[in-house]
């Protein structure tokens, strides 16, 4: 224990290398013997909640286990590995080799259905049974939601975007990466993505299985996946996009490749103009701005407008005959070859290697429709081109306020006499990423747009200092705005909870997280917990019928599933939510704002935190290129006129490494 600290370089691209203490088992690590390390039940435990991808460890899981192991060593305790296996799959790794001292599994009969609620009660039971002091979650859609739900249940002020972690405390980014907070360890910890190196464990551990008992059945019920066609996933949500440009002529192979890879189809402006793909599949400045994890461009030269559309793409693979094409320069893997040669080879090799879309047995098991795309819509009939005749038929049904100008459409009853809407949207002030000006928060704007789809009146609710920026929500359709005037740095939660308790809405809609401030995304979870509301996340559509709500939830990769939840209900909206409308200036100015004093201030848990401006960090690449691969100085890889099969294999390797493709059935086939 008195050894000098080891300096471990986590990531050559990340200047923020971490200093950690030598692990407890360091002596064991130096010995070649494979003695099993055992940790006493009384020791402090760290529980790592894994996502698992069909029973296998995902890259995020490995990073999480690394962080958990190091924290446990620092605390002088052990790691509890907790995982759910909803689809009846088996573990396809050995927990004893992955640093697990205890293992808690939820599989098979334990699941009523795959709901976040049942996972949460399982995790809480696992934490209690194993005596875990800290619970670590990965920063993924699923992991993040579980972390927030668990923290809300535990009444814990969870830490997100954690960059450094030891027994003394942690350092985390808040305010969208602008501020770094140092604080004592909370119970729920979510390390920032790709900030902790995966574990490189050399010792065997006990991996003793701990049995748990489950809590009550979930309130939000899974009603099954909606029909899913990977080719038609909304482009903004797609993880993997295959795009065609004017250099593509072999359309059957293109569609076949999209099906084989489970990729969403997209096209350049030219392709969509020509009607070869529908307009909503257009990528670029005048089409969709996409941010897939990988963008496969076939025969796209890369006009600047198109490149703007893929600016946020994590990786780009380009296949183009022109070495000097802008797309080739942008690509991480550039293949200078004819798309018509590579595409059939890609389809063939994917089938031969039994590679298919990863993640989710339900999707790969489902038979996809043969034709990925609907036929291009027929040209619209231009009836308006008909001759202008003198007598036109007048539209009917005038709105009363238009016909009678004396009707004052804008008058409202006094606030006290008015019932608040059944639907309340939590809104906040955002900060524009370029100008840093206060504006609508993007996710809250989507939340409001979703709420308006219900057709009934919507009240926007905000806690914070008075600002006219919030009027933009009135301009975007909210019927009124209630502003609880809390101090600038006060915790908005008590005020919101107190107001909601009085107003008793049936549905509360919230953006998944704020753009400024703590940005923990905890508000809806804590509110739901405090108010006793059921909660469903990432909702894209809802319908209220009686005392229940039918919901459609967005899942990663553009999938959708139906949920049924009891009212009152809290739902959150993420990027899959509906596109918000423009805020109308006059509507915003005319709308009604009620300012209300906040309830008495409670003690703020953040008092003990230390903050300082955060240093900019470079993101670690999601997967470093493997050894032995020819790369250019900038980490790019170019293949000039390769054999089509070799090019196809290179593309498939790339996708497999990024976790975008997995083997379809045989686990051993994975290289």
């Amino acid at each position, binding site marked *: 224990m008195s050894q000098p600290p080891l300096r471990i370089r986590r990531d050559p691209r990340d200047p923020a290398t971490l200093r950690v203490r030598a692990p407890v088992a360091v002596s064991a690590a130096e010995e070649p013997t494979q003695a099993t390390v055992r940790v006493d039940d009384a020791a402090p435990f760290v529980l790592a909640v894994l996502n698992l991808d069909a029973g296998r460890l995902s890259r995020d899981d490995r990073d999480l286990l690394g962080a958990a192991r190091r924290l446990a060593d620092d605390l002088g305790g052990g790691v509890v590995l907790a995982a759910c296996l909803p689809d009846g799959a088996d573990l396809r790794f050995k927990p004893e080799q992955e640093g697990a001292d205890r293992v808690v599994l939820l599989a098979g009969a334990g699941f009523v259905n795959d709901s976040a609620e049942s996972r949460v009660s399982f995790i809480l039971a696992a934490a209690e049974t194993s005596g875990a002091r800290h619970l670590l979650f990965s920063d993924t859609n699923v992991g993040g939601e579980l972390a927030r739900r668990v923290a809300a249940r535990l009444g814990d002020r969870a830490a997100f975007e954690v960059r450094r972690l030891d027994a003394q405390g942690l350092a985390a980014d808040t305010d969208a990466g602008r501020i770094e907070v140092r604080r004592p360890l909370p119970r729920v910890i979510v390390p920032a993505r790709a900030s902790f190196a995966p574990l490189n464990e050399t010792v065997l551990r006990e991996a003793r299985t701990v049995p748990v008992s489950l809590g009550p059945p979930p309130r939000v019920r899974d009603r099954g996946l909606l029909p899913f066609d990977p080719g038609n996933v909304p482009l903004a949500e797609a993880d993997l996009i295959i795009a065609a440009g*004017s250099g593509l002529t072999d359309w059957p192979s293109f569609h076949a490749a999209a099906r084989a890879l489970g990729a969403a189809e997209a096209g350049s*402006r*030219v392709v969509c*103009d020509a009607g070869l793909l529908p*307009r909503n599949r257009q990528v670029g400045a*005048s089409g969709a701005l996409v941010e897939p994890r990988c963008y496969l461009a076939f025969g796209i030269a890369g*006009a*600047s*407008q198109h490149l703007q559309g893929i600016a946020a793409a994590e990786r780009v693979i380009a296949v183009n005959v022109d070495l000097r094409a802008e797309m080739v320069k942008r690509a991480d893997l550039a293949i200078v070859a004819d798309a018509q040669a590579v595409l059939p080879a890609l389809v063939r090799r994917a089938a031969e290697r039994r590679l298919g879309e990863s993640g989710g047995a339900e999707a790969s098991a489902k038979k996809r429709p043969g034709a990925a795309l609907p036929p291009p819509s027929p*040209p*619209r009939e*231009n009836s*308006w*081109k008909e*001759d*202008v*005749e*003198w007598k*036109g038929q*007048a*539209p*009917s*049904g*005038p*709105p009363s306020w*238009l*016909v009678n*100008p004396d009707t*004052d459409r*804008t*008058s*409202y009853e006094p606030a006290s006499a008015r019932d608040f809407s059944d639907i309340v949207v939590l809104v906040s002030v955002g900060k*524009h990423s*370029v*100008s840093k*000006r206060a*504006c609508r928060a993007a996710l809250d704007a989507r939340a409001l747009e979703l709420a308006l789809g219900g057709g009934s009146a919507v009240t926007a609710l905000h806690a914070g200092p008075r600002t*006219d920026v919030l*009027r933009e929500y009135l*301009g*975007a*359709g909210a019927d009124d705005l209630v502003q609880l005037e809390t101090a600038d740095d006060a915790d908005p939660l008590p005020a919101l909870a107190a107001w909601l308790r009085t107003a008793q809405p049936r549905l509360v809609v919230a953006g998944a997280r704020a753009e400024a401030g703590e940005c923990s995304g905890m508000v809806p979870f804590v509110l739901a917990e405090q108010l006793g509301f059921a909660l469903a996340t990432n909702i894209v559509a809802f319908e209220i019928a009686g005392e229940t709500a039918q919901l459609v939830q967005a899942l990663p990769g553009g999938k959708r599933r139906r949920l049924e939840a009891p009212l009152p209900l809290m739902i959150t909206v993420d990027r899959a939510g509906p*596109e918000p*409308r*423009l*805020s*109308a*200036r*006059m*509507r*915003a*100015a*005319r*709308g*009604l*704002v009620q300012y209300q004093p906040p309830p008495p201030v409670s003690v703020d848990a953040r008092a003990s935190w230390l903050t300082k401006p955060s240093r900019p960090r470079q993101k670690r690449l999601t997967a470093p290129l493997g050894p032995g691969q020819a790369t250019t100085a900038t980490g790019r890889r170019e293949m000039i006129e390769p054999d089509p099969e070799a090019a196809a294999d290179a593309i498939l390797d790339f996708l497999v490494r990024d976790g975008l493709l997995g083997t379809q059935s045989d686990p051993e086939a994975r290289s």
Partner: protein
Amino acid sequence: MHGPDLAGIVLLLAAAGLVGQMVRLSWRWRVGGTASVDWVGGLRRLAHAYFHTVHEVVARDPYASRMHVMAAGGLVAALALAFVLHVGGMRGRAAVALASLILVSTAVSVAGVALVAWRRRPPRPRRLTGGTFNLLPAALLGALVFLCGSTVQVIRVGGSPEAFAPSSMALALLGTIALGTLVMWSVEGPMRHATAGVVNLMAHSRPRRFQGRIDSALKPLDLTGLRKPGPHLPIVGAVTPASFPWPRLAQFDACVQCGRCQEACPAYAAGQPLNPKRVIQDLVEATTAAQGGQSPLLIAEAGIGGAIAPETLWACTTCRACVHECPMLIEHVDAIVDMRRYQTLELGAVPAKAAVALETIRDTDTVAGRALGSRLDWATDLKLPIMAERRRAHVLLWLGEAAFDRRTQRTLRALVHLLRHADVDFAVLGDEERDCGDLARRLGDEFTFQDLATRNIETLERYAFDLIVTADPHAFHTLRNEYPALGGHYRVEHHSVTLDRLFADGRLRAGDGPADVVTYHDPCYLGRYNGEVAAPRRLLGRLGLTIAEMEWSGLRSRCCGGGGGASLADVPGERRIPDMRIAQARATGAAIVAVACPTCTGMLEGVIGPRPVVLDIAELALAALEAVPGAAEAVLAS
């Protein structure tokens, strides 16, 4: 002198009917808002407005001009003379002279009516309206036969014809029917163009047009009192016909449905759901609907039908081709922008991409969504003089949105080299320059436009300069014509004018480059909006280039499709406007399309397939300059 004869009575009845119809029309326009109209001035300029301003437009179609002069001129002259003859009861030798004049007038008019009928022979040209317009020649002919017959009777009888003779009765009946029809049609029918047209000329919203000047600046909305939030703010923009001041309703009613706007409209030609003629007729119908207590909504809203499809509104490129072609001087673009203002400011109902653009402009003061400080990123090597450091310069170079686009940065770079070579003392605003507000204004967001304009004017007022030069015709038009209403009065020049002068003064010289054939694409906001079609052509000539004109050029140039936010709205059509324009350019056989606008550059370069090279005139000028021996090195050195 005798009293009026039977024909005279018919004429008197018709005149009385016409007066009644004018009352009905004014009742109809009462739906509209109030407006202060200078009636005396309007009446005084009426003749000039009609014979000069209107006929300048009419004469662009010689057939229509001849047709109208003969048919209308003959009829009006014959009616006026017949009034003297029949109502005044003139007899004797003077009557014979008068009668022969009437006969000559009617003969001329009949020839004109024949031209009307001939023009409408099947198959009727697409742009002309059918319906009652098809019956117009018959009604006119009836009136002319009546005039002619009654006149012949007077001469033959030598005194008042017997009132109850069958021939008199028959003629009077014919006259009553024909003239009655025409009078009836002066409120609801083809003749309304005459009645409403006269009122339009007197009460026109842009009287400067009658002074032979171009008047293309949008009128600012008065926003005082609208900025303070409160429940009782008035509704802004056009939502019903009542939102327009009444002279604008008279203007819509003046439409003669000649279809010239339809022929000129690029969106219509591209098969997009916009036909300017139809838009005006929809406004007319909405006015009629508002009379009858029916839904007067212009655009559908909250499940209630409207007169005009929203796609129509957003397909407009605001190129003013329709306005330029309209013989009745109708301001289509003003109406479109008024309706857009309501959609944007009251409903926020704008096409998705336009909504994003407006949000971006509101949040960042740029269309591209870039930081103001990055406007000079492309020019770090050029070390442009900044106004904030210099305080004064001869020329203030307005860079505009072109500074954020890789393609148009090349144009700006060329322009900077040229100005340096010509020793022009210039400076840029750098991070103090905000978007000029053109796009926000055309999309109906008057608040954002006025906010941007006011802040730009505040900036400009701090510095001393003689002249603003810009390579962006949209900024040029906005700064030159639309900032004055907000208190910013500047001398603004488009770079084509500046470069033309520098070459003329010998401060820049063109070398002996290849004498390429180019075709020049006029930017709408330079040509039609500001009348500048000569300077760019002169400049191209000075560069030693030969111009092959396109099918539509100069003041009648076709839009590139990028103006007024139309490219953001991206309303689907059968074709793309820039594709059509490039096809016209290709037809000239020119190897180069010379452009003078960053928007046109982007739109035309976006056309795929074989096409002429798209080069800004600044790039062409720099190439010509570099052809001068030794000049290229000098440019590099600068």
